[in-house]
């Protein structure tokens, strides 16, 4: 099957390409970028991409698909369909399912279900410890063989630093990637929003910045000691960026990402107890947001993720502190990220890099590019088209987004996975 | 249709005379006079002095008893009702400046009954604008008037008492 995507503005950060041309796909892989078909090429199908942008499919470093377990909130089929509609072709899933991803069977189940649905490449993150209890090592090697691409203990605490040290040593032995979602358990136990002027005013229990920075510091020291391949997910504080910057200057190979909502929103937006803004880590101060945005520009943050957490309606229908944290974000990842370009924080190619090549490099994947020979995971979007976020437009079972009812600019027209059209508007 | 000023002092004088007659007629020897805030109180004070009544004057504020509370809201400066002696079993003379729909008197009587069961109530008003919504009639009236749609009557006082008919602006 040969598909040609005609006349789009092709942006591929890996090749530093930003040009209007045709993209030729041959048998599931990228064949060429150009104005004339390669010799002997015959297109079975043509996609008109005039006035559209053609880029590698997005890679989302952290999502909850809810299956197995909380299928009232989302299923692998529903959420991967939503991902395809959001231009995402690869995503990582949280090990915090029920059962937890600490056995090869669960990891395989997730991939099987995802393959059945056929929308997106689903790469499970394995649990670092059994049951995410923070004590006993999970079978990291077996999990890796069953498809886990990284390991995390999510936001759950390790029983002590020794347990963490042992886990990192073991992961380092097999050169496995460990993802930290840094949060000190004691400092965040009861909190539901950033500890600052807004939480003081609303009388909500705060989570201080130290809850993240203490844990980032501890992890950095142990990374240095063990030499483990490490990545920090969904950072929320300016100070964390500084700590990681300093570590990188010392020569530590650590990477970090940020969730899109932390780049756009802050604790002051929580005014009025809007439970759609209840999220972990909490939305921080405007200064923190500025620090994160700076970190994105300077590449300390090399990826933007959705931190997708679909919830059922009832989960958000309670007083703020009693609601479940989380934002449904697969389908808003791209349009919200485009706001950063509109706000002149970064250029469009740089943004595409944060959504494609950046996360691919963190994971050591060869995707996230349109180089000839790689699998044809492609996203075609209209940067000018506006759409309204509502029950009808969202495919995800989770309608829990602070942007519900908002009109967003930038809409995916077509998503190709391995040269196959998995979403078309 | 009328307009301009009415002589309030003259009206008060005729009300005093008629009330004196009515009291004799009904054999009211020691009634309690009660004025409805604000205009009714001014009148009641004058009547109380003129008739040389024994029992002290009572003052009624009916704001909490109005039936249009849900439509017009609450006046935040409600002053307390002051009934200086028990009204149970007594003859009452209720005084107000103007009667029209009869709702104010309805509210006043409801409030009075919360304080006990009076033997009788006699109603005195200076002006009767008619247009009643309720079957309530004054026993003593200074003058009956018919106002135009856009007209309003206003009593000012207490000294001197003056009645002015104005066009609503």
């Amino acid at each position: 099957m040969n598909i040609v995507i005609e006349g789009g503005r092709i942006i591929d950060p890996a090749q530093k390409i930003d040009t209007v041309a045709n993209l030729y796909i041959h048998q599931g892989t990228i064949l060429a970028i150009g104005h004339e078909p390669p010799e002997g090429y015959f297109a079975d199908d043509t996609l008109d991409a005039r006035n559209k942008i053609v880029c590698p499919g997005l890679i989302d470093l952290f999502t909850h698909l809810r299956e197995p377990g909380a299928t009232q909130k989302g299923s692998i089929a529903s959420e991967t369909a939503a991902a395809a509609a959001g231009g995402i072709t690869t995503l990582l899933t949280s090990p915090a399912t029920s059962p937890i991803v600490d056995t090869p069977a669960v990891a395989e189940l997730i991939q099987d279900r995802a393959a059945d649905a056929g929308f997106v490449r689903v790469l499970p993150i394995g649990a670092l410890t059994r049951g995410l209890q923070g004590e006993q090592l999970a079978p990291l090697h077996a999990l890796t063989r069953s498809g886990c691409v990284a390991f995390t203990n999510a936001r759950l605490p390790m029983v002590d630093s020794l347990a963490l040290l042992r886990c990192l040593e073991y992961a380092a032995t097999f050169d496995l990637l460990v993802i930290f979602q840094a949060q000190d358990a004691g400092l965040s136990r009861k909190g539901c929003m950033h500890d600052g002027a807004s939480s003081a005013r609303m009388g909500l229990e705060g989570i201080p910045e130290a809850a993240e920075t203490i844990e980032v510091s501890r992890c950095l020291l142990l990374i240095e000691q063990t030499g483990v391949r490490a990545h920090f997910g969904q950072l929320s504080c300016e100070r964390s960026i500084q700590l990681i910057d300093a570590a990188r200057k010392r020569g530590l190979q650590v990477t970090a990402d940020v969730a899109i909502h932390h780049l756009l929103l802050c604790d002051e937006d929580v005014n009025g107890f809007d439970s759609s803004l209840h999220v972990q880590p909490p939305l921080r101060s405007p200064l923190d947001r500025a620090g994160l945005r700076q970190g994105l520009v300077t590449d300390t943050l090399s990826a933007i993720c959705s931190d997708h957490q679909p919830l059922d309606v009832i989960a958000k229908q309670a007083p703020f502190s009693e609601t479940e944290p989380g934002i449904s974000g697969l389908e808003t990842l791209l349009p919200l990220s485009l706001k950063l370009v509109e706000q002149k924080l970064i250029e469009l190619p740089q943004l595409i890099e944060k959504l494609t090549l950046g996360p691919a490099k963190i994971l050591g994947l060869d995707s996230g590019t349109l180089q000839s020979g790689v699998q044809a995971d492609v996203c075609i979007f209209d940067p000018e088209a506006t759409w309204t976020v509502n029950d009808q437009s969202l495919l995800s079972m989770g309608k829990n987004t602070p942007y519900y009812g908002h009109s967003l600019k930038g809409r995916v027209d077509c998503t190709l996975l391995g040269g196959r059209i998995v979403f078309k508007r | 249709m009328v307009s301009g000023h009415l002589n309030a002092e003259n009206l008060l004088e005729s009300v005093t005379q008629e009330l004196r007659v009515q009291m004799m007629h009904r054999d009211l020897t020691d009634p309690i006079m009660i004025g409805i805030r604000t205009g009714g109180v001014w009148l009641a004070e004058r009547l109380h002095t003129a008739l040389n009544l024994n029992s002290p004057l009572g003052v009624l504020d009916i704001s909490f008893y109005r039936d249009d509370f849900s439509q017009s809201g609450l006046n935040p400066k409600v002053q307390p009702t002051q009934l200086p002696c028990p009204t149970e079993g007594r003859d009452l003379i209720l005084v107000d400046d103007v009667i029209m729909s009869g709702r104010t008197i309805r509210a006043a009587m409801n409030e009075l009954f919360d304080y006990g069961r009076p033997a009788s109530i006699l109603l005195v008003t200076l002006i009767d604008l008619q247009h009643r919504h309720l079957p309530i009639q004054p026993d003593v009236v200074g003058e009956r008037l018919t106002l135009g749609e856009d007209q309003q009557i206003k009593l000012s006082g207490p000294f001197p008492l003056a009645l002015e008919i104005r066009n609503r602006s």
Partner: protein
Amino acid sequence: MLPKEYYDAIQLTPEGQLKHFLTIEGLSPLLLTEILDTADSFVDMNAQQVKKVPLLRGKTVANLFFEASTRTLSTFELAAKRLSADVLNLNISTSSTSKGETLKDTLMTLQAMHCDMFVVRHSASGAAHFIAQHVTPDVAVINAGDGRHAHPTQAMLDMLTIRQHKGDFKNLKVAIVGDILHSRVARSEIHALRILGANEIRVIAPATLLPKHIESLGVKVFTEMSRGLRDVDVVIMLRLQRERMQTALLPSESEFYSLYGLTENKLAYAKPDAIVMHPGPINRGVEIESRVADGPRSVILNQVTNGIAVRMAVMSMAMSGQQLNTQSSSFTESSARTESL
């Protein structure tokens, strides 16, 4: 940041009348003064022989207490009864409820009973907002305390007490002492005092009992009584929950008392005519010395008396605003109004 507009939208009618009473924050000085004036009328009425008016006759007020409080519940109940409303008291233990479902379900059930007003107390901040957002538009919601967020009727009764003793707020220095961190009363008082134009608002507490960035609410922070109480006109003591001693917030009751308990000696730092207030119930020998609590400068019992009047005022104003709001806009002035000129 748009709290003003937000709070306007949720608790005021387009004409600026109260339809819910959820928080003091964002209300105008005019409206607060109107509440105080109306409450004053009820204070007078409550001293009368007949302590009942028919303003809410035929209305049903449901007191939804998800957190036990005999005192607040009884003043709300008495206030509603003195306004001639039918009163339904529901003590709903939160321990048996799971997440938010039950709160919403409870709400739906009560709405089906056609209640006209919900008086809500809940342990979660924002619970009253949540309920106001989810009730049908003709039901008024009064916040009787939500988590650490707000206790607006308590703050207004304190303002009424202060006004009765001090007249104007303009020149007043007010100190709030004790567990500011966990106190919804303190938060509402700070808003009320600021809106009514108090000269200086101080909070006095150790750092463990102060929320971060409390200064952003417009208060001065003191950690010592001797400096914090200097020249104040009003001292508001807060209740200290015994549970606080079980965490690292405070070492012991006696240490707290020796540092922050209001004694005659410490009260001497305040102005000679300073008044002492406490929202109750009092922990004698923990926050306050008995001699002070029962002394001539204590106005604690006035606060209780004013509590009923303020609640009557707020309930009648919210009910009136709620009905005005839901009535057709073509209402014309009634003749009863002309008559009372």
